[in-house]
């Protein structure tokens, strides 16, 4: 039967909390879980590792490696860490893989639900603020070591430029003007970006330095996966511009890495 009582809200999360709390288990840790003893075995899980974003002259590039790790083991070689959100934004996630993917999915549904019910897209800054709320609601799990950290980027139609937002585990939201990288290899990726980044770079240059940053992160950090030329698995790269979100074709990513390797 149709329940018309929630007519007034465009907030999908609020509807889930009120009517379907069972669907929120992974992003809304119960108080009981926060007090439970932590044992290593109870928290064997996959970790998703390096993701980054770089602003360029027409928008922003967002990328992630494809490896998930379980302790010192490779857990998954083809995991996706970057997800389009709406026509002008994308989210990338690092941390405990399960809750990460769940958060990205919920966030995407939330933004699309808003757009469809209201008839207009939520502003980029509005999306960034809402994400901060989602991260905070994961605090219980974060305290248990199951941290989910997103990186959010998009093209701001009103301000006509690409923008990047990073978060801390308690939901703090901070804007980065040029580039940022998070996850276990985030610091290594940032080092590369710091040396290579210049303002107003074009798309090609942005893709090159992003590819190089993931390469360096994979080189230094055991939990980050580089390009796998044998299995043909390559990092995912997305561009977000005024025209929309577009995935860089795998062949183009392969080309970027063949080029990079030839210069090493």
């Amino acid at each position, binding site marked *: 039967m149709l329940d*018309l009582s929630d*007519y007034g809200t465009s907030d*999908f999360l609020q*509807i889930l909390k009120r009517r379907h709390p069972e669907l929120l288990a992974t992003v809304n840790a119960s108080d009981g879980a926060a007090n439970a003893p932590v044992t290593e075995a109870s928290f064997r899980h996959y970790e998703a590792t390096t993701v980054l974003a770089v602003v360029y002259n027409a928008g922003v590039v967002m990328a992630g490696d494809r490896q998930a790790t379980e302790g010192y083991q490779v857990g998954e070689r083809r995991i996706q860490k970057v997800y389009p959100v709406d026509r002008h934004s994308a989210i990338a996630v690092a941390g405990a893989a399960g809750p990460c993917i769940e958060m990205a*999915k919920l966030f995407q549904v939330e933004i699309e639900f808003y757009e469809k019910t209201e*008839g207009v897209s939520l502003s980029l800054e509005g999306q960034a603020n809402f994400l901060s709320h989602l991260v905070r609601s994961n605090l219980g799990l974060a305290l248990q070591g199951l941290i989910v950290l997103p990186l959010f980027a998009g093209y701001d139609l009103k301000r006509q430029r690409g923008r990047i937002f990073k978060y801390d585990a308690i939901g703090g939201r901070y804007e980065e003007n040029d580039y940022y990288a998070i996850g276990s290899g985030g610091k290594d990726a940032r080092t590369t970006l710091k040396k290579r980044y210049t303002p107003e770079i074009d798309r090609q240059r942005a893709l090159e330095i992003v590819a190089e940053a993931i390469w360096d992160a994979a080189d230094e950090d055991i939990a980050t996966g580089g390009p796998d030329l044998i299995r043909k698995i390559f990092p995912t790269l997305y561009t977000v511009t005024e025209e929309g979100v577009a995935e860089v074709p795998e062949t183009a990513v392969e080309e970027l890495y063949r080029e990079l390797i030839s210069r090493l």
Partner: protein
Amino acid sequence: MSTPYYVSPEQIRQDKEDFVSRGIAQAKEVVVLEYRDGLLMVAENPRKTTFKISEIYDRIALAAAGRIAEYEILRVAGIRESEVKGFRYYREDVTAKWLTNLYSQHMGAVAQAWDAKPLEIELLVCELGVADAPVNSGLQNNQIYHIAFDGIYSEEEKYAVIGGRATTITEILEQRYTDGLEMSAALQLVTETFRTIEADATDDYEINPQTIEVACLEQTAERRKFRRLSTDEVTTLLDF
């Protein structure tokens, strides 16, 4: 104590139907028809932000004739139920048939309630399918469900019309509709049909790109198949 009076169920039903059909008779029409790359939806609607056709889910759209306010509540409820179902299971599990049943139950219950006014709307729930879907494959062809105010629904093929002059428009389409039309040809067919019926009307409503609302569910789109056509795009298609 006053004498209890008796009204037969047939009479109650007839009264409600008369009441609703007086409202619907004045409602401007919405046409949905199959074209080469999907489903095209066209409505007589001069307004720019109050729509009669809208996106519900990845492959599903909803069109309505009648009271906009009553439609609006059902539209939002449909989006919400679809998103919850897709979030719980998988996006492909949200279907027009399921949504039609949901609307049908609700509209039927409201129409039967002794203390409520029946909804003065008719709906078309449309789902973009795949061409020549094999039987029992889980895949479906295009689907169009027409739901009346009392929740009774019927499955339509190739095209469907709701609104006051739906019967007249259907008669014209029966003669002139052909399979596999290009989008421009399909749109021209609908606008010409609208012009034909408006020529007989008294309120001289002129059919042009500013006075019609056009949207489509198109096969070539990515996940979200619904697209609203801009006035410029409609102008181009009509000049084609």
